[in-house]
């Protein structure tokens, strides 16, 4: 057990370090601005006095290191300063939106993960049949399509032509859970289509990769039926790659959501990020980037830890 604790500890430490480095990148990249933030906010026509005043207000007269440490200290307590454009605290702008985004991602994940793994195993079992080939073409097509293409097709058919679901996912206070699911169905379905395709292909590859192992041939030569070969002999060894696949795609859900949110005008953090980028509202951009990066790292970490925990060689040391 000591080995596992050590390895998990190592991964956690590494994740923290990477997060720290990323916060440095995110913070100091803004410093690379031609001119500085004050210049960017006020534009070329600003007077020296106005610039100086704004610089003082934003603390730009202090060295970058000091400002970084202050920013980091606040960021740890989820305080990202206030927006340059609207002057409201960043947390206020993105707090609720982040929950919305998480909800959408979770909605998609709950549908996508079981479907993808079951289909992936099925396709691996029926490999090189017509079913497998059709699935290959279908998943490739789905992966290759931009999210907005899938999104608009769904809108065209499910919303405009057949009127089954709303095209715009506006959320309001006090709506029932069923109503919520109905309104967010199309964006969730778009995400599901992309992610299922990815996960299916990777699950299939992971299992087929294992099927070439001598112990699978041994199981076959012991008279084990094909489904049992997959379920009992291949699957327990495929967990590490499958967990990896799932984590990778969950991470993708969190970030791929940006485009889908714009298509469906969904009030999530991705929309906020895109708005902030076009308005050059740097505190909001920084906060969003940090949140996305942190989620991404967390999920990758979870995958690594999961892979360690399911490895029989590590679970039962010599």
């Amino acid at each position, binding site marked *: 057990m000591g080995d596992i604790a050590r390895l998990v500890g190592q991964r956690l430490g590494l994740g923290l370090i990477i997060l720290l480095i990323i916060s440095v990148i995110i913070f100091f990249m803004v410093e690379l601005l031609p001119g500085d933030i004050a210049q960017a906010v006020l534009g070329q026509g600003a007077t020296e006095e106005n610039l100086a005043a704004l610089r003082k207000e934003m603390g730009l007269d202090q060295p970058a290191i000091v400002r970084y440490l202050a920013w980091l200290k606040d960021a740890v307590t989820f305080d990202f300063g206030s927006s340059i454009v609207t002057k409201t605290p960043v947390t206020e702008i993105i707090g609720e939106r982040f929950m919305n985004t998480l909800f959408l991602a979770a909605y998609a994940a709950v549908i996508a993960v079981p479907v993808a793994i079951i289909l992936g195993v099925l396709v691996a079992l029926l490999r*090189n049949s017509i079913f497998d080939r059709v699935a290959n073409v279908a998943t*490739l097509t789905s992966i290759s*399509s*931009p999210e*907005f*293409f899938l999104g608009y097709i769904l809108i065209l058919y499910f919303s405009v032509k057949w009127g089954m679901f709303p095209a715009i996912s506006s959320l309001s206070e006090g709506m029932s859970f069923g109503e919520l699911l109905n309104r967010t169905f199309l964006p969730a379905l778009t995400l599901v289509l992309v992610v299922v395709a990815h996960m299916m292909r990777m699950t299939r590859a992971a299992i087929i990769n294992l099927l070439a192992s001598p112990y699978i041939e041994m199981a076959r030569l012991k008279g084990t039926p094909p489904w049992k070969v997959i379920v009992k002999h291949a699957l327990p060894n495929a967990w590490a790659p499958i967990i990896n696949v799932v984590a990778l795609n969950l991470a993708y859900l969190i970030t791929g959501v940006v*485009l889908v949110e714009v298509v469906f005008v969904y009030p999530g953090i991705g929309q906020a990020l895109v708005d902030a980028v076009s308005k050059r509202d740097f505190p909001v*951009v920084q906060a969003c*980037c940090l949140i996305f*990066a942190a989620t991404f790292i967390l999920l990758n970490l979870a995958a690594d830890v999961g892979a360690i925990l399911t490895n029989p060689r590590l679970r039962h040391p010599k």
Partner: protein
Amino acid sequence: MSLFVIGYYTLLLVVSCLAAYFNKKTIFLLAFSLTLVSFVLGIVGGPGALRAVAICAGLLLLTGMVSYAFREFLIQMAESNIGLSFTNNPPVLYGCIIIPIVLIVLSRLLEWPITEFALAALILVIILIGMNSETAKELRTAPMTAAFGMFVIFTYAIAGIFAPYIAPHGEAEVISSAFAPADESMLLGADQLGRDMFSRIVYGARNSVGLALTATVAAFVLGAGAGLLAATKGGWFDQLMGRIADVIMSIPSLIFALLMLSIFGPSTLVIICAVAIIYAPRVFRLTRAVAGNVVVMDYIEAAKLRGEGTGYLIRREILPNSTAPLIAEFGLEFCFVFLLVAGLSFLGLGIQPPTADWGSMVRENATLISFGDITPLIPAASIALLTVAVNFVVDWMLFRSSGLKEQ
């Protein structure tokens, strides 16, 4: 109407029976399952649905035929062994490569109107060089999907290179009212400013694909170069590069691109740099892995012990043994980059108007979708079609290079 229904079923059943009689299992299964599907849909949706199914099936059949013919065409070309007349004749080989390049440069500088033709000639020469019996053997293994992919890429390349000659109108030329429907001069109608949609799609092939291609090449040069060096040198350089790649890769790509665009403003150069930085680590990892498999070979050890330098090792020993996976990886990365750039354009942060660009065109015309008009889907479909095509080809190449022969 009923004549169509009767004719349709008769055709399907005749094909099924013939296939069954001549023991063509796959054709029989396809034709007969299509018959069954048509039965069900015909009962549920009436002749309209049946017609839709018939059109879909017909289109698929047509695509299949085009792909098949295109593959046979390529195989015929390859079998003529035309590439050998280049490779066995170095002066001809270098001449045929250098002359078009000189022409391209000259025509750019002196504004001769022959850039397109020189570029096309260069690409043609490069393809012809690869045409030998080895290629023919490989091509024979290409499934229909890969042949279809190659055909689509070919079409896009023609459209992109010869855009000014193909497009009936200028890229930013306003010729009618906003959202005018299709007519004789406008194949696909007009966009939100009254510009010809078809012409803009054709120009988009040049702009969108060109940008993505340049960015991918930049990412590839950076990533593959670092990967090969890291694999050959090993030690601290390898470690350092690996760690840098780890850090960059733990920022989601779209988010990183948005961050950089927000700071440096949306311009073509910024997009290319951003994409190069974001995708170079991915290319690095793969190249490192591919070259890593080669580096452990005894012949590399032998060359190292002989005292060969890094340059020789990479050029003569490692690169020739990793080209196949690297080409496939290039296709794969191109798809990712293309989708990312299209996404940025869609968000209004990519190529700036009035340059025609597929991602922006989707966004500009998006409102039409709520009226049931498919115009905004056309540029989106153009993006999807190219990525699908490249992915089909890559899928086949990866399958070939992995040597995976599952039963």
